[in-house]
């Protein structure tokens, strides 16, 4: 009973991918693959997605902990708010970031005036936009793991004299590691494919803010073939990295 819908589901996910591969102009693939622009965009994508994942880990894990364990009022509402970037059209997210962190934004104007820091149109801006959109994936995944974890282990650590921070570091975090890794992987994948918020907040300039999805989108305007090749590159790299991570960290069924 489950096999048929399962296969349909798999086909639904894989057939568009197959379409991309079938229609790819394979003859021109090697040339395009090793062109400077593609290399630049790919490097930028990987660096930004990884940095965004680090930002999400640093801010998202404590947030997940607060949502899962914190004794705060309106937790359900807060949890719903955290998922807003998932629901928000990414372009709108980008505009929201501009309104806050832009040159004339609520916070951005002071960053500019006091520190001379301006995030839009910079690589740092790409990281901010990607982190904004990807963070919910990490928070939800880690919070789920924390809620499933037995809080009595934390009590046991407390009776052994461990402070809250030590308990979190040595007991809680290791016990939710699979959730953290899964969340980080999702987060990274989402950041890697991020387009709307990035182009809106960080703009598009080759070598600085043009990540692969932006390059793909703009290539679509004039050279659909090039867009397909770029997509395939992005696809292969991400699948490669994710598969590698899975083997290394999650230790899938062997």
């Amino acid at each position, binding site marked *: 009973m489950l096999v048929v819908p399962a296969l349909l589901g798999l086909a639904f996910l894989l057939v568009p991918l197959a379409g991309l591969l079938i229609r790819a102009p394979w003859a021109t693939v090697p040339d395009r693959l090793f062109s400077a622009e593609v290399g630049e965009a790919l490097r930028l994508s990987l660096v930004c997605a990884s940095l965004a994942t680090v930002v999400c880990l640093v801010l998202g894990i404590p947030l997940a902990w607060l949502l899962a364990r914190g004794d705060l009022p309106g937790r359900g509402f807060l949890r719903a708010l955290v998922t807003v970037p998932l629901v928000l059209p990414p372009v709108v997210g980008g505009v929201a970031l501009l309104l806050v962190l832009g040159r004339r934004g609520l916070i951005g104007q002071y960053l500019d005036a006091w520190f001379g820091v301006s995030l839009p149109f910079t690589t740092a801006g790409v990281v901010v936009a990607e982190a904004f959109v990807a963070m919910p994936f990490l928070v939800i995944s880690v919070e789920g793991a924390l809620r499933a974890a037995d809080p009595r282990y934390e009590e*046991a*650590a*407390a*009776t*052994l*004299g*461990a402070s809250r921070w030590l308990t979190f570091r040595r*007991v809680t975090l*290791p*016990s939710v590691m699979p959730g953290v890794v899964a969340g980080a992987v999702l987060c990274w994948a989402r950041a890697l494919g991020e387009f709307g918020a990035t182009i809106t907040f960080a703009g598009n300039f080759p070598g600085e803010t043009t990540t692969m999805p932006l390059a793909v989108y703009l290539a679509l305007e004039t050279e659909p073939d090039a867009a397909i090749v770029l997509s395939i590159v992005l696809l292969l790299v991400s699948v490669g990295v994710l598969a590698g991570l899975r083997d290394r960290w999650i230790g899938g069924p062997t």
Partner: protein
Amino acid sequence: MTVHAELRVTRDRFRLELDLNVAPGEVVALLGPNGAGKTTALRALAGLLPLSAGHIRLDDQPWDEPPKVFVPAERRPIGVVFQDYLLFGHLTALENVAFGLRARGAHRGTARALAGDWLDRVGLADHAHTKPRELSGGQAQRVALARALATGPRLLLLDEPLAALDASTRLTVRAELGRHLADFPGHTVLVTHDPLDAMVLADRLVIVEHGRAVQHGPPAEVARHPRTDYVADLVGLNLYRGTAAGTAVTLADGGVLTVAEPASGTVHVAFPPSAVSLHPEPPSGSPRNTWQVIVTDIEQHAHTTRVRLDGTPPVLADITTATLADLRVGPGDALWAALKATEIRTYPA
């Protein structure tokens, strides 16, 4: 050097009102049915649950005195063995035992060396680098005990320490636990619903029902004079300490019992009062333990009558009302007690 506690916890409709004093080296068992409030009391002592009122003090040091003082668990000199041990799954046995030492500021090397010593003491030196999920139940329990004792706590708290073990493991682990508790100079509070654990391990019993202590005293005392039916049922067990040689066990307080399973060394022997039959004349023929006893007390329960008998050894017997009528006995009368060897359980002590 005494733990004084007036535990007052109010949660929803449950109220705990329990006074507790534990002397150094003393093992106090909180014995009672599930939901009686034993674990609540233990959590309050550990600092995992703040008191609503009352106090907990070690000597003059207050640990919890609402609303002024609350020392959280991590700053109390305690060790806790949890019912399902709660060993940290990602750490080895050695790292688990070293955890508390590290948390309390010991250097890595020192902590590991001390943890190694403790594993050695509980007989698990070979399993130092084993992860908890590869340990048997009994081994995990011993690691948990080593982990709790390694920090040198002033107060040791044991929450149903044997409940997760199967019957045969339980015997040996109980005996070992008894030896470690005897060596432990601090205060021990043991929570259990198993009367045998309580009577074997504790110096003093506190019977808890509905959040209150209904009776307390040394195990033999509580067993001999249960104040409620519940206590009578709960501790209605004839339990002796003795030295076994083959099937003969010489009891510490006098008397010899013949048991079915050969044993050697120090043992506990136990049998339920219903296994004892009473006769006006010495019964003859069958291979039984028989000895002369004097009735000291007769107590009527719902379906049986419990007769307290003095002799070597003193013993409790549950008989039916019909038998009681046949015997027509009262306090001071002499009878013969008889007990089949196969009814007696022997536990290494």
